[in-house]
């Protein structure tokens, strides 16, 4: 074998080796960066507006009641945690995408998937929010009857990211739900029955 042939083989090996090492290092670095980003959970303020993708949301406080915000009595000793908020639709069109905005992390609820939202102005179920019009909205989760009334709650505020062209239809939309931050605040006793049965 000639010297040039040996030299070529060596160069090839060195190139492959350097490339592989670079790929491994890059992937490791990216992984560490992602881990670092995920571990950072911001604590959000209570009573100040929070930008959460489609929504501008202010959390005013939480109470525990035996009636829902539209005035119906809960059955079988159940109670509802009601979080008073103000929500503004920041998008370019009327939206109903508000069920996943707040996630109850603690205490556990019997309505784990979605809370029920009530428009405070009408004392009725919230049907839609118009862009640019701030509304007071009560967000309600039902607690199981056998659970002692909690003294505080932990909420996560969720947000989606705007994509001007989505991957399937090239249409604008909101995707990739993520946590903006968490809030922990005390629960006020609402109508005196919060402690009953607890």
């Amino acid at each position, binding site marked *: 074998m000639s010297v040039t042939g040996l030299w070529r083989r060596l160069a090839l090996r060195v190139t492959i080796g350097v490339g592989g090492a670079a790929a491994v290092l890059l992937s490791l670095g990216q992984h560490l960066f992602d881990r670092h980003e995920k571990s950072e959970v911001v604590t959000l303020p209570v009573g100040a507006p929070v930008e959460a993708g489609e929504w501008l949301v202010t959390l005013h406080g939480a109470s525990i009641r035996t009636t829902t915000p539209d005035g119906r009595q809960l059955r079988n000793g159940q109670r509802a945690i009601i979080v008073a908020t103000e929500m503004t639709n920041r998008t370019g069109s*009327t939206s109903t995408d508000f069920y996943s905005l707040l996630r109850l992390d603690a205490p556990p609820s019997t309505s784990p998937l979605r809370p029920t939202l009530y428009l405070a102005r009408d004392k009725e179920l919230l*049907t*839609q929010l*118009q862009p*640019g019009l701030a509304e007071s909205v009560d967000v309600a989760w039902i607690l199981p009857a056998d659970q002692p009334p909690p003294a505080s709650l932990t909420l996560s505020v969720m947000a989606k990211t705007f994509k001007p062209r989505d991957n399937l*239809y090239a*249409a*604008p939309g909101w995707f990739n739900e993520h946590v903006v931050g968490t809030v922990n605040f005390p629960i006020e006793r609402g109508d005196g029955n919060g402690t009953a049965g607890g």
Partner: protein
Amino acid sequence: MRRLLTNAASLALGVIVLAGLRWTTPGYAVLTGPLPSDGRAGTTVAARGFTVRIGDVELAKSLRYRAFGRTVERTSDGVFAVAHATVEATAQSTSLGGIAWEDAGGIVFAHSRRVDGAGALLLGKRLQPGLPQQGLFVFELPRGALKSARLLVSESAEPRLDSQARIRLPDDLQGRAVSEGLDLDESARAR
């Protein structure tokens, strides 16, 4: 050398042309979007399966109507815009699922669901050919959305490859007086 340069130049030109084509091709959502049929308030605008004519637009801070045996009152931090409309199916029975208000900046306000149950609404009402129906479109808007607005009316809520009537509203809406309260039932009966 000369040949190499020619090849490189033609390759670069090809890349530029293809990039241009790629960037200027409208997306799938645009290509399959609504087919507009434009018109002005006061005239009859024809879409594929229906015609719509917008009359007067009334503005109010609060609305009142009777539904389910009681009087419902609705207030707003913005303003309620109530448009009088005459709609009619043309070829076969249909209903209007998409009624929206688009402001000058392109922000779209859907027909308000807060007045559900009012008798005079046309949203979702069954329309028959040859039987024009008069009724109301109700929107809840910030004051700023009144300027050079238009109404978007279609059979489905989000029309795809189907016609959408786009009706330009009068430009003087922002200067008009806003009444304290408006009774939807009386307003619909009055015309």
